[in-house]
């Protein structure tokens, strides 16, 4: 099977449009999107551009939970949220919500993370081991029996992420998972996602406004504005456009640096994604001066 075989396409949206009930303006307009197996995609765009709405289509929450007018062709692992239930779709797709407090339902950290596995009737012993492993990776072992509501907001975000990761969905969607995480916690999450990706071939879609630490780890960046996709490509391709100026996107600081220089008449060899790359490019250019 070749890499681009159609079997690899797990999400296929054609000309998708959605208008929330009671709204006049569509929140999604002519969205065409194919997601292939094992891709790690970053979805970004200014506030209100339709990122979260798109995620809600991919999880079947639209139109099953958020009613409205949904048009276009949709295939999510062969399913269409207008015909299939949320439950069916969530067999393959897992989503971490933006605000962890809307996701947390249980009392202790352990019970919250074990909740999904308990629903899947996994034996208690296995659940315990998996939860402990997950907590260890996230440096939260000592919070095992802590009341979730007593944790800091960032710690709650980590619990919310852990409770979805542990279900090992085929397509994992994370809506601004790092917004309340420290850089250290963000790097830990990235490490965990990479492991999941390498070991289990999980496909990942991350929605984020701030992606300094993420940029080098994703295979694709998609930018949305006003309900539609305005840019889509490899991180290098997409970041070589000045997304801040064009779309109000908060670019990684290395990309901001590249564009600031460019605006002032100095063009670096290419837009750097990592510290090492930036250092190499600059070292070379400074030597040439």
């Amino acid at each position, binding site marked *: 099977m070749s890499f681009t075989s159609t079997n690899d396409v797990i999400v296929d949206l054609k000309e998708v449009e959605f208008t929330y009930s009671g709204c006049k303006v569509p929140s999604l307009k002519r969205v065409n999107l194919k997601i292939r197996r094992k891709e790690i995609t970053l979805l970004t*765009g*200014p*506030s*209100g551009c339709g990122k*979260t709405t798109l995620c809600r289509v991919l999880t079947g929450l639209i139109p099953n939970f958020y009613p409205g007018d949904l048009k276009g062709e949709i295939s999510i692992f062969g399913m269409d949220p207008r015909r299939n239930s949320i439950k069916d779709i969530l067999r393959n797709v897992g989503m971490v919500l*933006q*605000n962890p*407090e809307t996701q947390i339902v249980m009392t202790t950290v352990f019970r919250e993370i074990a909740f999904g596995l308990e629903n899947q009737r996994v034996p208690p012993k296995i659940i315990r081991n998996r939860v402990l492993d997950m907590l260890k990776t996230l440096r939260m072992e000592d919070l095992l029996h802590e009341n979730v509501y*007593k*944790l*800091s*907001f*960032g*710690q709650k*975000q*980590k619990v919310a992420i852990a409770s979805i990761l542990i279900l090992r969905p085929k397509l994992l969607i994370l809506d*601004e998972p790092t*917004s*309340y*995480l*420290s*850089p*250290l*916690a963000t*790097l830990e999450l990235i490490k965990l996602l990479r492991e999941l990706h390498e070991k289990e071939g999980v496909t990942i879609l991350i929605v984020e*406004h*701030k992606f*300094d630490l993420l940029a080098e780890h994703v295979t694709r960046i998609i930018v949305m504005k006003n309900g539609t996709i305005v840019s889509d490509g490899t991180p290098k391709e997409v970041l070589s456009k000045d997304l*801040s100026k064009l779309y*109000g*996107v*908060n*670019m*990684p*600081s*290395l990309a*901001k*640096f590249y564009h*600031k*220089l460019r605006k*002032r008449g*100095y063009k670096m060899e290419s837009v750097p994604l990592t*510290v090492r790359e*930036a*250092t190499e490019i*600059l*070292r070379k250019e*400074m030597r040439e*001066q």
Partner: protein
Amino acid sequence: MIKMENVWFSYDGRKYALKGVSAEFHEGNYYAILGDNGSGKTTLLKHLNGLLRPNKGRVLVDGLDTKKIPVSILSKKVALSFQNPEAMFFSSTVYDEIAFALRNFGYKKEVIDRLVGKVLSIFDLDRYSNYSPFNLSEGEKRRLAIACVYAWEPKYLVLDEPTAGQDQIQRELLVYVIKHVVRQGRTVIIASHDVEFIAETKPYIFLLKEGKILREGPAEEVLLDEKALEKAGLIIPYIAQVFKSLDSERYRKIPINPDEASDFILNFIKRDDNFDGS
């Protein structure tokens, strides 16, 4: 000035969230509390307006001990915007949400209308005036949370992770708000782990680790202290990492943000041109 003197605090009488914190926040300055998740940042902020009171030590707001003065009086001076905006909303419209505190403070209707109108426009929320706050997007909710506390022009503006989930436009707005407030001689105190934002706005920093202040100082110094940052769950800004490994100390101060970095490179080129010419 807000002064914290050896503040200890525990939520459950068992584990201490703050362990002997001392800090001063002066008028007309901009401060940031940085630290890992669960390091005590939010707990510290909640002490500034008396929402939490120390178990040991004391907090003085313009000389007033927060243990002796009700929150209602303190919060007129010290406005705190929460991390989770939904925790502070309860009005049925965005307009009422912003007007709430102003009404409580007994302002006249005309004044309230004027202030709310101004705030709605600064924070680009005009079109949502009659919306329920709960129907806004997460990013807009956070913007509204800041707008609410900005409205009554408090002497101390305290913001918990104001850049979380904000796009470039909102970040620029925030930079404007911070500059504006500080220029008026008022004080801004934020909690954050957004190192890149801190590098761009350069506050005076308190690094917090497990309830203790690990280090304090101007952003230009603290953001280059790799060891201290790492202990606090943070990393050096990417730009600074690049110029550190370029050994740029040899030339001048290490740039910590994109603006300084592009200045550095252009100056470097210019200087070399002169070199060639001489």
